[in-house]
């Protein structure tokens, strides 16, 4: 059975082939292109399922992961090897990623219908899937980074897919550059790690002795003082996560990424891009916790917790259906990051997987709503879609309840595990922040549901909405099943009845070396209460008395607070006025410096030389040397005269020759200033000739 692991490397290859084939050969046949992409991801899905189930059936896979490498580049006396690896973490990612991707691809068949760049879309999303699949099977950090960046490229291309729209084109650029800032830190961390350990293979880097070595070394930094190397490396790598998983302060790109077609939003927000950032932390988890009582986990947890709450507050005040979900993603990612910072490895990984399913469901559902409502994205213009889009409605409800954390849906189990873990380990502040965020999450989802699906249509578009085609609704149904049921693989074992029955397979498979998080009835009860309260508050404000057309959002009564939240705390404007402005000014300043200072110095030197040579010509060459030469000529002539008929031609020839040479030289030097072509060639040749002659004489 384990020989089937040898299929692993093929998993990212199929979508890559689809990408290449579409770009090179079948651009013009859009049906062929789209089905090629779907077929390729489906093959990857089948292969991944095979690998997953084999992995589940392989004992001790965690301790002895499958690995296969090829020599990729020679580096001095050693060589860098690239390869694939399957361990339990990879296996569960392989369960999730191709499955969600396949649903998104099928959905896109319908959603992208009629787009002039239909084939190109499927090429890009195939490459996107390649990026994520390559990333999860990578056996080393460099390969992970390579696929990580390929995803960055795809996000750029897809967010700006409708590039004629200036807002889309700017959003793509913003996404790429913002994540690139994080990536620069990631790259530095990677280089640091590589130069300290001489390897980037996970198995070697994360081995006990390497981690111990890194933890025992320390480096003195300005401002921070003496810090263990392991901490520095971990935090630099975490910089990549902050960018990719849109954590504060690099979160600004993700909401704008909504400019892309909705299947792309689902892809970015659920299965691929942002998950990659969290996956990186999960993968490098031992490094983060290598230093006993180190600062890295605290930093990670703080950023995660802050982001979780911060993004929730913004989500509350957004009116664009996809933007609400975007901030929701940021917030949920914050949860995962917080969990990993607090040491809750299994809970973080579990939430990563469950979230992927229900967030993909919600995004695709929102896309269905948008398409049904004739490309209307403003929730204030919706309403009453419940009866018009039945499948979309019910699946959306499933996603909402899962995200809000209503038992027994998937999100409940994973989120509760994070909160319980935080509480049990005495991280009360993190727990409180997480709980507050849970309440707000339920609230903004309730607000969304009631604004979109209940009440009366508030616009012409909503009035005439109709259900989406089956290529779109079937994926919703599949994802809804996972959103409802997936949580059962991670029910704590001490949970009454269910726990014993199900046995928490997720924990046993992915993190059996980590202690299980026991059920905490207080935490669990409170989180259920908060989730219900959040949904209830949503009902009170938006459900009991649905908004009518033109009626303002009740939240506007919050006044200034609402304005601040709606404008996302003004962070975009702040960045624009500081970093962006400064960089552009600096660039302009340097350009002026280059033109007006450096280049002028060059020209001044050249002019100075010209003036000197002119002076030489006028005051030395013409009167003195030329005079001398002429004198010699005269003398020669005189001698020739004197010697009468003695070989007149020879002497004359010499005299004329010297005279002519003198004139030529004079002219040549004058031409240094006039810029005649030949004089420079002459100068170059003379260089060589003179040197040769000198050498010849000297030796």
């Amino acid at each position, binding site marked *: 059975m384990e020989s089937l692991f040898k299929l692993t490397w093929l998993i990212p290859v199929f979508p890559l082939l689809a990408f290449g084939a579409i770009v090179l050969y079948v651009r013009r046949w859009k049906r062929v292109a789209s089905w090629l992409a779907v077929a390729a991801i489906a093959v990857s899905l089948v292969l991944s399922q095979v690998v997953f189930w084999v992995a589940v059936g392989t004992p001790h896979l965690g301790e002895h992961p499958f690995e296969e490498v090829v020599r990729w580049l020679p*580096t001095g006396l050693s060589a860098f090897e690239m390869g694939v690896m399957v361990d339990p973490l990879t296996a569960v990612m392989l369960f999730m990623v191709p499955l969600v991707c396949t649903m998104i691809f099928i959905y896109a068949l319908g959603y992208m219908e009629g787009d002039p760049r239909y084939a190109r879309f499927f090429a890009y999303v195939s490459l996107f899937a390649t990026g994520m699949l390559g990333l999860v099977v990578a056996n080393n950090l460099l390969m992970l980074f390579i696929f990580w960046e390929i995803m960055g490229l795809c996000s750029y291309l897809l967010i700006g897919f409708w590039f004629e729209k200036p807002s889309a084109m700017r959003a793509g650029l913003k996404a790429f550059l913002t994540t690139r800032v994080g990536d620069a830190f990631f790259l530095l961390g990677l280089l640091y790690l590589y130069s300290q350990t001489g390897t980037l293979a996970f198995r070697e880097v994360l081995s006990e002795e390497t981690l111990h070595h890194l933890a025992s070394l320390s480096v003195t930094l300005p401002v921070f003082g003496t810090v263990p190397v392991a901490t520095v490396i971990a935090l630099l790598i975490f910089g990549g996560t902050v960018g990719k998983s849109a954590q504060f302060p690099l979160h600004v790109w993700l909401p704008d990424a909504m400019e892309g077609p909705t299947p792309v939003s689902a892809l970015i927000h659920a299965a691929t891009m942002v998950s990659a950032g969290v996956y990186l932390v999960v993968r490098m988890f031992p490094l983060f916790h290598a230093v006993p009582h180190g600062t890295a986990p605290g930093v990670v947890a703080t950023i995660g917790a802050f982001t979780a709450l911060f993004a929730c507050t913004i989500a509350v005040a957004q009116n664009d259906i996809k933007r609400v979900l975007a901030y929701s993603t940021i917030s949920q990612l914050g949860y995962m990051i917080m969990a990993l910072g607090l040491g809750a490895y299994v809970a973080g990984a579990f939430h990563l997987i469950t979230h992927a399913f229900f967030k993909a469901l919600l995004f695709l559902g929102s896309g269905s709503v948008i398409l049904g409502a004739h490309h209307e994205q403003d929730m204030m213009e919706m309403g009453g879609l419940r009866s018009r889009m039945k499948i979309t409605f019910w699946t959306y409800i499933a996603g909402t309840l899962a995200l809000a954390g209503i038992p027994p849906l998937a999100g409940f189990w994973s989120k509760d595990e994070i909160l319980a873990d935080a509480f049990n380990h005495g991280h009360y502040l993190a727990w409180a922040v997480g709980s507050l965020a849970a309440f707000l999450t339920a609230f903004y989802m309730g607000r969304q549901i009631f604004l979109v699906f209940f009440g009366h249509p508030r616009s012409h578009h909503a009035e005439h909405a109709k259900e989406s085609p089956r290529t779109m609704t079937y994926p919703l149904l599949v994802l809804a099943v996972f959103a409802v049921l997936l949580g059962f693989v991670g029910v704590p074992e001490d949970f009454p009845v269910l726990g014993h029955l199900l046995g928490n397979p997720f924990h046993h498979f992915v993190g059996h070396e980590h202690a299980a998080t026991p059920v905490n009835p207080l935490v669990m009860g409170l989180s259920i209460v908060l989730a219900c309260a959040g949904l209830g508050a949503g009902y009170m404000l938006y459900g009991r008395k649905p908004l009518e057309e033109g009626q303002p959002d009740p939240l506007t009564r919050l006044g200034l607070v609402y304005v601040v939240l709606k404008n996302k705390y003004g962070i975009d404007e702040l960045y624009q006025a500081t970093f962006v402005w400064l960089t552009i000014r600096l660039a302009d300043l340097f350009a002026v410096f*280059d033109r007006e200072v450096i280049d002028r110095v060059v020209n001044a030197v050249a002019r100075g030389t010209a003036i000197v040579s002119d002076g030489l010509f006028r005051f030395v060459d013409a009167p003195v040397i030329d005079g001398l030469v002429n004198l010699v000529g005269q003398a020669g002539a005189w001698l020739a005269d004197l010697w009468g008929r003695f070989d007149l031609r020879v002497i004359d020839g010499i005299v004329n020759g010297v005279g002519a040479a003198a004139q030529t030289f004079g002219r040549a030097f004058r031409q240094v200033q006039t810029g005649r072509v030949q004089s420079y060639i002459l100068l170059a040749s003379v260089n*060589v000739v003179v040197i040769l002659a000198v050498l010849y004489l000297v030796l």
Partner: protein
Amino acid sequence: MDWPVLSIMLFTPLVGAVIVLALPKEKPALLKWVALAISFIPLILAALVWFSYDRGTGGMQFVERAAWISAINVHYYLGVDGISVPMVCLTALLTTLSLFYSFIIDQRPKEYFAFFLLLETAMLGVFMSLDFFLFYVFWELSLVPMYFLIGIWGGPRREYAAIKFFLYTLVGSVAMLLAVIAMYLETGSWDILEMARLQPFAANATLAAVAFWAVFLGFAIKVPVFPFHTWLPDAHVEAPTAGSVILAGILLKLGAYGMIRILLPIFPAMFRQFAPVVGILAAISIVYGALVAMSQWDLKKLIAYSSVNHMGYVMLGVTAAAAAAGSGPAAADSQAIALNGAVLQMWNHGIITGALFFLVGVIYERAHTRDLKAFGGLGAKVPTFAGILTVTTFASLGLPGLAGFVSEFLVFRGAFALIRPFAIVSSLGIVISAAYLLWKVIQHVLLGPLNERWARLTDMNRREVITLAPLIFFMVIFGLYPAPILDLINQAVVTIVGSL
């Protein structure tokens, strides 16, 4: 191989130039095809050398040596190793592509193609020469045809740009020449490899320092390293398209090649001592070059400054290797990685920036402007151009999966281990280069609503696509699997590092 493959490769273009000159002026098509056909001979031979270079043995191969000017011990001495083979191949490839692209030249085609072939001989000569005298002859010779290519077939300010290019390089060359003569007087040899063994001026630090800086100046101007770079934007902006391609693709490499082949092995101790200074210049070239590029609105000028930025990585790699000269096997791996990165970056920059200049030519031929503000929305109008430009741009900004990344990664890896502060400062360049390439180039040219002025713009024609196809091929193939070229480079680099 027992026939003089290098000599044949070297002099075929020269003979070709004479043949082209002898052809009748009235038949421009004929002489273009003849020139192109001739350029295939060195290209095929270069490929042959690439594949038949014995990677197991390493060292200098295909060596030819004969006394030339015995009075002063000058030899006609050619040979190639893993560093020069890629450069020779790059030269042959870019020359052939440039000639093919230049079929559009109508003004005095005969002279144009003859100069181009002459230029090829000069460039190949620099990469093959193992005798300093010979090296210098070819080095100077390369100036002449490029001078004319800019001065005759260039843009409005061509005379100024051509003279600036010529004189600036010449100043550096003279400085280098004086130092080299002094080195010859000291060692009695022009043999580049021999000089590295003899280590001239080992006993006299002052003299060594003067010689080091003189040679450095000669190469630094060519690379170009900040602050000696201002000839570059002028030359590029005025040069004809193929001239820019060769200028950026190969002539800049002459300087970088000199740093690695000559300066580093002959003055390792000096280079080590001055590594902080050179490192600062490299880091400035990277960050400053990127920022100044970001401020440009002339597409060609922007790419010219991006060369300052990208060649800065070469210098960073060389400096890293130099900084650890003489520190034994502990640093050897990092040094080798840095130098591998530097040489690979030379190759990649040639391929990528060559492609970028071709693409500027493509758009300029049609639009007759390079003003970034004048474009917009071409992505939907000219999809092939858009696709190729996008791939090339991403290769240039170092996207993993494309060639530029591998070399930048290796340079950074080496530099991070050996000259950490410079590597950290230089990493700013990664972000800024993404900014100027995506914001200025891609966004202003391809994205946004279509500027109606370009409603009738045509996409790339077959000649242009054929010109760019091989370059795209190399960007992708060595991005995915760099081992074939790095096996070649690595071996030579390890030898150099071992001798430091």
